[in-house]
């Protein structure tokens, strides 16, 4: 009642409120439009490639600009393999860092080390790429690749993954650089949620005689499981879509090999390297179609990540 009287007596005021409400609401709608527009524009831009190659686009290893035959399999596998290597390294290391910064380190050490790790996240990816190309790849070629080839390359069954010339550039190098890039993201999510575990839970376990490791493994990790998975998927989304760092160290080779020491390609790297040089509509359309695939995959991964993190927030709200 009162509200309606106020509105009728002061029309100018309510008009201002209404206009402001529309303005801010419209801006919020732009956020949704940006995401929707990105998806639609790439599906539209890639339609020529999808129409020409059909489902074969996904399983073909062709990449022939002269004869206009394109397939997504090589870059898709490159993207998945490098991201997988990155996660294999980054997840345990991030867990270790989060554990160290919440349970092990003396209090005076925690804040500075946490900020230093977060600085890693702020370094632009092109710097990682340059470092990878000029410093890390030669290091791998000189010291790591020969060792892997000699010791792991001759093993039965898994040997084919680890044999190859010591080029320095390749899947393994790209995976390691990606791991370094996503460690700060995953570890800072883990650290933040580890801090939210109620002290009484941990203290109860300590009172029963648990060791620090047992508290971390049996109390902290189960309590924060959803958010930890969310953080891991957040890192995975980043690793899948990362462009510059991978472009520098992957070697830009359109070939399918089992060996992790061989150069390869990833979706983002192909687009970055070739988009401005694409000389036919079909070529460009194929690159946009690759972008669409990347968008769909990262979208799915990020949806999982956010849902997991959100559930954790709800849990906190209730607790």
């Amino acid at each position, binding site marked *: 009642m009162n509200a309606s009287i106020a509105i009728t007596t002061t029309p100018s005021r309510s008009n201002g409120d209404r206009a402001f409400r529309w303005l801010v609401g419209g801006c*919020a709608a732009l956020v949704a439009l940006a995401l929707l527009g990105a998806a639609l524009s790439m599906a539209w831009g890639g339609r020529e490639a999808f129409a020409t190659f059909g489902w074969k686009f996904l399983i073909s290893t062709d990449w022939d600009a002269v004869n206009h035959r394109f397939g997504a399999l090589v870059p898709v596998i490159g993207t998945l393999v490098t991201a997988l290597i990155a996660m294999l390294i980054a997840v345990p290391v*991030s867990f270790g860092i989060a554990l160290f910064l919440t349970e092990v380190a003396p209090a005076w050490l925690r804040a500075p080390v946490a900020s230093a790790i977060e600085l890693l996240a*702020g370094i*632009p990816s*092109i710097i990682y790429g340059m470092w990878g190309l000029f410093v890390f790849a030669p290091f791998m070629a000189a010291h790591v690749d020969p060792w892997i080839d000699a010791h792991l390359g001759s093993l039965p069954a898994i040997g084919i993954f680890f044999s190859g010339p010591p080029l320095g550039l390749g899947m393994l190098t790209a995976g390691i650089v990606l791991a370094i890039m996503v460690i700060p993201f995953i570890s800072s999510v883990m650290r933040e949620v580890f801090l939210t575990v109620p002290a009484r839970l941990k203290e109860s376990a300590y009172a029963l005689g648990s060791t620090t490791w047992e508290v971390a493994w049996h109390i902290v990790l189960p309590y924060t499981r959803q958010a930890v998975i969310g953080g891991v998927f957040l890192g995975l989304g980043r690793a899948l879509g990362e462009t510059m760092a991978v472009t520098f160290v992957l070697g830009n080779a359109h070939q399918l090999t089992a060996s992790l020491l061989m150069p390869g390609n990833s979706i983002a790297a192909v687009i970055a390297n070739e988009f401005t040089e694409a000389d036919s509509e079909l070529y460009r359309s194929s690159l*946009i179609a690759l972008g669409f695939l990347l*968008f769909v995959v990262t979208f799915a991964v990020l949806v999982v990540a956010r849902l997991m993190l959100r559930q954790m927030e709800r849990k906190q709200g209730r607790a």
Partner: protein
Amino acid sequence: MNISEKLYRRRRLRNAAALALSGCATVFGLFWLLWILWTTLVNGAHALNPALFTHSTPPPGESGGLANALFGSLLISALALAIGAPIGVLAGTWLAEYARRGRLGEFIRFLNDILLSAPSIVLGLFVYALVVKPAGHFSAFAGALALALIVLPIVVRTCDEMLQLVPNAMREAALSLGVPQWKVTVQILWRSARPGIVTGILLALARISGETAPLLFTALNNQYWTAKLDAPMASVPVAIFQFAMSPYEDWHALAWAGALVVTVFVLLLSLAARWYLRRAHVAHD
């Protein structure tokens, strides 16, 4: 007796091993940070000279600087902030003030979180389809728009969070004096959330100043000094990419100098943002 002692020892050993490994993991993380920063510092410092800021990017084999790229980066970033930040603040205001609870607000918040971590190269492709292709040529404006899409979700999120932290008593006090809601928002809530919002904008600037992928096929590159927004424009990250991938030694040196400038700028910016936020907090108390 003996068995329980054995068990106890094994548990202690496992604990010690796990904690030692966690320490190693932290050293591992810090090790890369130091290695990367050290490399950038050493190589960049070698190549740093006044010509970097006064000369334009050279053709192969000649000496030059990055003046046009630095100018381009500043212009494109400023334009990106000018587009992205106001929209972000307004959208964040809607989330915090008009849709704090409820399905629609949650949905937009969710989409914003996804946009926040969407691959930046995809945003570049989007702007290519939206602006570059219809216009028929690459342009600095398109580059700014692509970066604005990165600025937007960062600002939306910080603005939303910061406004939610403003005590409700402040809204109630102002509304009870008969102030219209939009004025309450603009003159009271924004003002009290300002340190947080400014921090968000600074962090967004730090994020876009090293961003390369979305500029590759929007702003492209330009060997010459230009201030025309509807023409290709050089930027530091794209120049670094071009020079680092080239076979020429002196181009590599320029790339390292650019890398050092960008890294120092980004790190100083994020430190400044933190310092500003902390100072504002202290002042409030």
